[in-house]
């Protein structure tokens, strides 16, 4: 147990997170606040007097009146005295170069009667702008100890730590007397809830229905008191804000002088380029291409390295341990599942590296500014662009990146449609099938027909995403009214420590939280593909020997045995069981098995096809598989099985179906429940089924 819980609160872009990183370094944990999908960042910090403090980084907000889910947490943590993160001390972080706006939040928090400190961060920026702040007099006017810091250089951090060891007195008088706004309501609520603070009681009246820690009965009581006294939320809040600002203005005028009010000229120049009708989009497109290229290509080497080393480790374990079920479970089930988790680390790290740089530098809000109108037409938001494009490399990091989207509705829709974007795991499937059914010939002189089909598949995924988003826009109800109102922060050189910590934190979260689900599902899939019921599976060895006759090599036997085992495993039986359902799409039970095992990851299609068609491990390359598939004859028609119709039907199916347990796991984590991943799977499967059916009938 920590000796002290300290909360960090501040406006977005006040340098709060940088300060948090400076104070805690790697001693930080990310989790969720109970019941909601809001990142909870906590860290421990040793104070100069030897005490241990738990530091909570609360989401950035402009006031304690929440507009988004993230901001609501601030309110809950502060008002609910039983909340596990309820702070003993609050450190309010304010941007010294934009003091007036930053002080509004401070004055609200000060009036809650929780001991607090005011950090004036970015004091260097203020000095550069020739802002003179009389700290001593400001401190007296606000009734709080002020610590000037520069979170970029680390100046002032030791002062802050020192201040946390001292006893902080809570001022007797509120900064702003809220009594005049709602005298009777405050008295009644204070009596009802035995509160000793006016502003707390007033906040209960203001936020009543939004506060999830209050019960039904308490909500009703507060509503009754409000009705009785004629308390209206919005006008009162409006009056409060205005009057607080009036007080703040006076204080600012007394303690702040600006010698050189020249505007930030460089900033405006950069903006003219980044939001230029041509250069703006060119820069943004170039950046997206770079990100896409990085996730797609740069991650390949580290991913192969991870896969190979885990495979090597698996082989080693397999050799060391005695043969048997435990050995198989450990190597083919658990270690293989672990590989399925760890292999995503390079892609996640790369994407979040880029996102952190874009956020840190201030560019991200310009990109959102550029894209908002375009995306809004489809029920999305400017911030949906990065996840959607990243989804073309891999949906896992892309869905994790939706945390940057403020409104729950916009975020949910983005999560919902991102898996439609053609990810890199679909590519091996597309390559085999295109090679199988599309002739490699030029079209209109310089295009290649195969290439055009591949591009068409990517386009198909994109259209499905956009159209689904548009439809979802009518169905999903917004929990909060969404605003676009957003600060465009001034440009800064990214702080690399923050970029590093973001990467560290995001990969850690993925491995720990989505990893559990991925390993569990891969064990289930492994059991299904490796075990079966009935005599045929039990006597697989003998049956295969009978089939092969007298002459066969050891290798032929192994290959035939694994094909036979797969056919009679649970997955095989299930593939046969669903055969009637997938027959209208042109598939047989063999494809059925591949559809089931592909749920681990789409590229598993290739491996399953090679097992089921008894292609030896050495010959497991595209050309061999394609040749083998080409020879396959449909027993009903006597024609080749993999004709144009089946090929296109399969391609379309893989373009749309939710065949990725890792995506499912990450959607579960990001939406905090099974409701949305299930709806998404059903919806995507339906789209895939119907479209594959149409494709099959068009081409046959």
């Amino acid at each position, binding site marked *: 147990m920590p000796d002290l819980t300290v909360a960090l609160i501040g406006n977005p872009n006040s340098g709060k997170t940088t300060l948090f990183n400076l104070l805690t370094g790697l001693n930080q944990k990310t989790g969720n606040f109970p019941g909601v999908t809001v990142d909870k960042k906590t860290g421990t910090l040793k104070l100069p007097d030897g005490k241990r403090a738990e530091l909570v980084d609360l989401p950035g907000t*402009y*006031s304690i*009146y929440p*507009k988004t889910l993230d901001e609501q947490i601030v309110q809950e943590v502060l008002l609910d005295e039983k909340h596990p993160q309820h702070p003993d001390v609050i450190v309010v972080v304010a941007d010294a*170069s*934009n003091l*007036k*706006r930053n002080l*509004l939040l401070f004055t609200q928090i000060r009036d809650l009667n929780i001991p607090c400190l005011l950090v004036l961060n970015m004091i260097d920026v203020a000095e550069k702008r020739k802002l003179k702040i009389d700290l001593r007099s400001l401190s007296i006017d606000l009734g709080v100890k002020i610590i000037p810091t520069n979170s970029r250089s680390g100046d002032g951090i030791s002062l802050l730590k020192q201040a946390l060891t001292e006893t902080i007195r809570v001022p007797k008088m509120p900064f702003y007397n809220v009594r005049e706004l709602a005298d009777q309501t405050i008295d009644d609520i204070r009596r009802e809830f035995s509160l000793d603070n006016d502003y707390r009681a007033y906040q209960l009246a203001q936020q009543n229905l939004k506060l999830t820690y209050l019960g039904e009965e308490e909500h009703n009581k507060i509503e009754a008191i409000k009705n009785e006294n004629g308390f209206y939320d*919005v*006008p009162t*809040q*409006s009056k409060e*804000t*205005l009057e607080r*600002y009036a007080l703040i203005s006076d204080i600012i005028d007394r303690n702040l002088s600006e010698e050189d009010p020249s*505007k930030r000229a460089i*900033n*405006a120049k950069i*903006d003219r380029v980044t*939001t*230029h*009708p041509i250069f*703006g*989009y060119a820069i943004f497109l170039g950046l997206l291409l770079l990100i896409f290229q990085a996730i797609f290509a740069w991650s390949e080497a580290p991913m192969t390295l991870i896969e190979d080393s885990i495979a090597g480790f698996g082989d080693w374990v397999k050799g060391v341990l005695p043969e048997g079920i435990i050995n198989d479970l450990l190597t083919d089930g658990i270690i293989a599942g672990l590989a399925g988790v760890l292999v995503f680390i390079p892609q996640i790290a790369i994407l979040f590296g880029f996102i952190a740089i874009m956020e840190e530098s201030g560019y991200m*809000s310009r990109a959102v*500014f*550029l894209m*908002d*109108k*375009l995306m809004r037409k489809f029920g999305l938001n400017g911030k949906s662009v990065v996840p959607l494009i990243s989804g073309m490399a891999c949906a896992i990091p892309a869905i994790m990146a939706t945390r940057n989207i403020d409104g729950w509705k916009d975020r949910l829709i983005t999560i919902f449609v991102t898996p439609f974007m053609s990810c890199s795991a679909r590519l091996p499937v597309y390559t085999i099938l295109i090679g199988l059914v599309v002739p490699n010939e030029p079209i209109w002189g310089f295009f290649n027909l195969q290439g055009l089909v591949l591009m068409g598949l990517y386009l198909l995924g994109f259209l499905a995403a956009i159209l689904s988003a548009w439809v979802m826009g009518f169905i999903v109800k917004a929990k909060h*009214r969404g*605003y*676009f*109102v*957003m*600060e*465009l*922060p*001034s440009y800064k050189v990214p702080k690399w420590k923050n970029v590093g910590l973001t990467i560290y934190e995001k990969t850690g979260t993925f491995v720990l939280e989505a990893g559990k689900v991925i390993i569990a599902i891969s064990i289930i899939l492994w059991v299904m593909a490796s075990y079966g019921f009935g005599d045929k599976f039990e006597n697989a060895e003998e049956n295969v020997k009978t089939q092969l006759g007298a002459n066969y090599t050891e290798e032929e036997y192994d290959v035939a045995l694994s094909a036979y085992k797969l056919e009679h495993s649970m997955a095989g039986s299930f593939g046969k069981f669903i055969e009637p359902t997938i027959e209208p799409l042109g598939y047989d039970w063999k494809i059925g098995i591949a559809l089931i095992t592909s749920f681990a990851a789409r590229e598993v299609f290739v491996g399953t096809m090679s097992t089921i068609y008894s292609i030896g491990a050495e010959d497991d390359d595209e050309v061999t598989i394609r040749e083998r598939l080409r020879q396959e004859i449909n027993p009903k028609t006597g024609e080749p099985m993999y004709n144009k119709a089946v090929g296109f039907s399969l391609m379309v199916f893989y373009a749309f179906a939710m065949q990725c347990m890792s995506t499912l796991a990450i959607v579960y984590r990001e939406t905090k429940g099974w409701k949305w991943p299930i709806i998404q799977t059903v919806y995507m499967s339906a789209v895939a089924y119907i479209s594959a059916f149409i494709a099959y009938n068009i081409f046959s």
Partner: protein
Amino acid sequence: MIKGFTDDELSVKLMEMGCLPGVEVSLQLIAPLGDPIAIEVAGYQLSLRKEEASKILLED
């Protein structure tokens, strides 16, 4: 200069962010597609959609 607002709920949000009656604002940027826009207010840049900006009443 801001005179007032025509939308109560939005006005609270805007006021929290420093758009107070009596404060001077100036148009800084217009996104290439005509929306959203960015204004300079209280010493920083604020971007908002045109529809949101239309709720702000201005006077000279």
